[in-house]
C-alpha cells in the first residue's frame, strides 16, 4: 500500500503526453520487450529480403546430393546442409518467410472475421450476441490445434489450407476479446453522442468503438501470432502444413528428425529458430500488455 502511494506521487504530472505516446515510452522502458522487438524486426527484414540473400530455386529447393549432410562450419555452409545437400541457413531464412506469412495472414484473417463477429455481438447485443457467443462456445470447446488439424484433414495439406485452418481456429478468441472491449466502450458518452447524431452502425463501430478497444486487440494479436507460429510449425511437423520441398521451420524439424542421431544440428537449429521467435513475441506481448494497460502492472 505504501509503495502504491509513493508511486502515484512520484509520477510526473505530464498531461500533455498522449495515451499512445505514453504507452510507447512505457514499452521502450521494458528491456525484454525491446529485445523482442529488435529480434522480430531483424527477422521480418530477413524474411522480406530472403530472395536477395538466397535464391529460392537454386539454393533453397535445388538438391545437391554430393554435398549432403555437411555439418555446420565457418568455411562451407554456416549451419550445414540437409539430407539433400541444401544449405540449412538458406532454408531457415526462406522458412522464416513462410512461417511469418502463414502466421501473420492467419491471425489477420482471424482478427478480421472474429473481430467483426465480436464487434457485432458486442454492439448489437441480444439475439445476434447470443448466436455468435454460442458459436464461439462451440469453437472454444475444441482444442485449437485439433481444430486446425481437422480442417487440414478435410481440405488437404497445403499452405493455403494451413493458413485457413489456423485462422479459423483463432476466430473465437478474437470474437471474445473484441466483444468484451466493445461492451466496455459501447455505453461511453462519445459513442452515445455519435449514435444520437444518427451515425450509421458501421461507422460507429469502425470510427468510434474499435479505435478504443485497440489495446487488448494489439496484445492479443501479438500473442496469437506467437501461437500461430507454434501451430504452423506443429502442423508442418506432422506433415499437415507446408509441404516439402518448400521450407518451413516445423517441416525442417520433421525432416531433420530422421537424422537426429548423427546430424542433430538438423533438428536443433530449426527448433531454436521457432523458440526464439515465439520467445520474442511473448516478450513483446507481455511488454505491450504492461504498456497498454498500466492497471495490470
Amino acid at each position, binding site marked *: 500500500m505504501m509503495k502504491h502511494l509513493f508511486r502515484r506521487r512520484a509520477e510526473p504530472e505530464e498531461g500533455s503526453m498522449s495515451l499512445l505516446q505514453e504507452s510507447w515510452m512505457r514499452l521502450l522502458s521494458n528491456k525484454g520487450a525491446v529485445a523482442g522487438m529488435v529480434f522480430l524486426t531483424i527477422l521480418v527484414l530477413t524474411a522480406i529480403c530472403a530472395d536477395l540473400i538466397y535464391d529460392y530455386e537454386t539454393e533453397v529447393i535445388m538438391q545437391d546430393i554430393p554435398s549432403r549432410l555437411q555439418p555446420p562450419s565457418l568455411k562451407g555452409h554456416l549451419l550445414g546442409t540437409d539430407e539433400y545437400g541444401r544449405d540449412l541457413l538458406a532454408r531457415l531464412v526462406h522458412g522464416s518467410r513462410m512461417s511469418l506469412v502463414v502466421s501473420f495472414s492467419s491471425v489477420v484473417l482471424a482478427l478480421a472475421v472474429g473481430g467483426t463477429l465480436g464487434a457485432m455481438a458486442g454492439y448489437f447485443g441480444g439475439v445476434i450476441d447470443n448466436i455468435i457467443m454460442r458459436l464461439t462456445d462451440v469453437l472454444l470447446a475444441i482444442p485449437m490445434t485439433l481444430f486446425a488439424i481437422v480442417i487440414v484433414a478435410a481440405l488437404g495439406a497445403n499452405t493455403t489450407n494451413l493458413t485457413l485452418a489456423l485462422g479459423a481456429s483463432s476466430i473465437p478468441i478474437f470474437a471474445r476479446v473484441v466483444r468484451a472491449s466493445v461492451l466496455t466502450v459501447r455505453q461511453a458518452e462519445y459513442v452515445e453522442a455519435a449514435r444520437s447524431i444518427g451515425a450509421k452502425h458501421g461507422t460507429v463501430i469502425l470510427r468510434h468503438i474499435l479505435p478504443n478497444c485497440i489495446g487488448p486487440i494489439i496484445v492479443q494479436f501479438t500473442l496469437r501470432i506467437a501461437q500461430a507460429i507454434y501451430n504452423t510449425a506443429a502442423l508442418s511437423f506432422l506433415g499437415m502444413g507446408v509441404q516439402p520441398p518448400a521450407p518451413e521451420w516445423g517441416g525442417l524439424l520433421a525432416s531433420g528428425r530422421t537424422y537426429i542421431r548423427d546430424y542433430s*544440428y538438423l533438428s*536443433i537449429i530449426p527448433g531454436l529458430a521457432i523458440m526464439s521467435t515465439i520467445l520474442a513475441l511473448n516478450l513483446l506481448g507481455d511488454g505491450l500488455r504492461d504498456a497498454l494497460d498500466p492497471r495490470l502492472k
Partner: protein
Amino acid sequence: MYKWVRAMCVVLAFVLLVGTLSGCSQGTQGEPQGGEPPAPKDTLRVALTSEPPSLTTCDHDSLISVGLNLLTFNSLYKIDHASLLPVPDLAYEYSVENDTEWTFKLKEGVKFHNGDLFTAHDVVATIEYAKTVPGSTLYTGSIKSVEAIDDYTVKITTHKPYAGLLYDLGYHYNFILPKSLIEKGHDFNMEPIGTGPYKLVSWDYGNSLKYEAFEDYFDADHKAKIKNLEFVIIPEGASRAIALEAGEVDFVWEVSGADVARLNANPNVNVLEVDTVDNVTLFMNNDVKPFDDPNVRRAINYAINRQDIIDGALNGYGRVNYSVISQGFWGSTNKNAPEYNLDKAREYLNAWGGDPSTINLPILCSNETRVAIATIIQSNLAQLGIKVEVVPMDTATYFAKWTAGDYVGVIASWSPSNSLTYVQRFHSNRRNAYPGSLNSPEIDALVLQAEGTIDNDARLALIEEIVSEVNLLSPQISLYQSVWLRAHHKDLAGIVCSATGYTAYNDFYWKK
C-alpha cells in the same frame, strides 16, 4: 536495472541451452547402449513400422497385414518365399481337367486354433465368403464355383481357362478360415483364428501385438520354433535401429538407409539387404497430350538416369530397372527396355516432332523421398528441354488424385507376387482403377491369352512377349526396384525374407 539483469539472463540461458545441446550433439558417439540383457530365448520381438490396418484376410491390401495374416492362416497353395512359385500348403496336390476344373487334394488332420478340424467345407465357405467381400474381384473374380467333393477333396471351377488360379489362391483373400466361425459372423479382426503357426494373444492398439506358437500346427517343418512372438510398433526409423541396438527388439522389419552404417558397425547386429520385386515407377497419364505419344514416353524413359536416383535419393539402396516389369519374376525380361541414353532420347523426341519446351510434366509425390526422385528427374529431363514440376502433397490427396485420373505424372510402386498378376495390369480393363494407364487392344489380347494358358512355359513365353511389347510402348517408366533393409540380432537364425516383402517368423530360431 533489474529488467536488464533479466534480459541478460534470457540471453545467457539461450547461449547455455544452445551450447549444451550442440555440445551433446558432438559428444561421444561411441559404444551403443547394450545394457539390456539379451532377450529370453523363447521370445522374438519384432519392430514394425506401423500398426497393421487389419488382421482379417479380406479387407485390406496392406503389406504389414498380409505379413501377419501369414502367421495365423494358410492357403491351399502358398507362394514360396524363395522361389516366388506356388507350392502346396493346405492342399498337397491338384489336377486340372478341361482347363477350367481344378481338383485339390487336402491335407488331413489339420487343426484350426479353435480346435476345429480343417476340411473341404472350410475351403468352400472361405472362398464363397471372400467373393462377397467388396473389392475382392481381383483375387476371386476368376473363380466360378467351389464345391466339396468329399471332406478332403475340393473342386474349383473357373469361368474360363485361367493360369493365375494358384497364385490367386495364395493371396490373403483366399486364406482359409474355419467354416463354423464364418457362419457365426466371427470378427476375424479381433481374433484371427486360422490354421497358422502362431495364435494371436493380445493386441494393444497402436502399441504392440503378441502371438504365441500354435502347438498343433500341421506342418512339422515349419512349426514355430520360438514360443512367443511380439510385434512392437516403432514408426521412426532411427528409433527402430536404437531399439535393436538396445536389445529391446530382435528383428527390425524395415531399417532406414540412414541407420545402416551404424548398425553394420555393431557386432551384435546383422543387416540384410533384400532385393525385392517392388517396382517404383513413374506413371504418366497416357490420355494426356503429348504423353499419348509413345515416342514422347520413350524419350523420357531414355533420359532418366536411374543410378542418379538411387545414389541421390535412396542412400544407394535400390536396383536399377528399365523394364516395365520387376526383375526377379519368372517371365521377367529386359527386352526392348530403354536404358539410359540421351542420344536415343533426342532421337525419339525428334520422331515425335514437337517442341520439347512445350512439354510440361507435373509429378505428384506423396513423400519426400519421392520428391527427391522427382527432383532428380527434373534435372535429367531439363537436358531435353522438358519441364518437370514437382508437386508434393499429402498421401490422401495424392491417392484421391491418382485414382481419379487427375494427374499427368505420378510416382508410385507396386509389388505383386508374380509376373502374370503384373502384366494383367497392362490390360485396359484395369483403367477403371488406374485411369490413364495403357490402352492397347493388341496388349489386351495378349494378356487374355496368357491368362488362359495353363501350361507354364508357354505362358511365361507369352508374358515375356507382353513385357517386351509394353517396353516398346513405354506407358510408364520403371525407376528402380526397392532394396528393403532388415536387421536382426546376430543370434537369430533361420531368417527368410521374400522379394515380395514377407518374412517367415515361424522359421526363425535362436542359435545356441
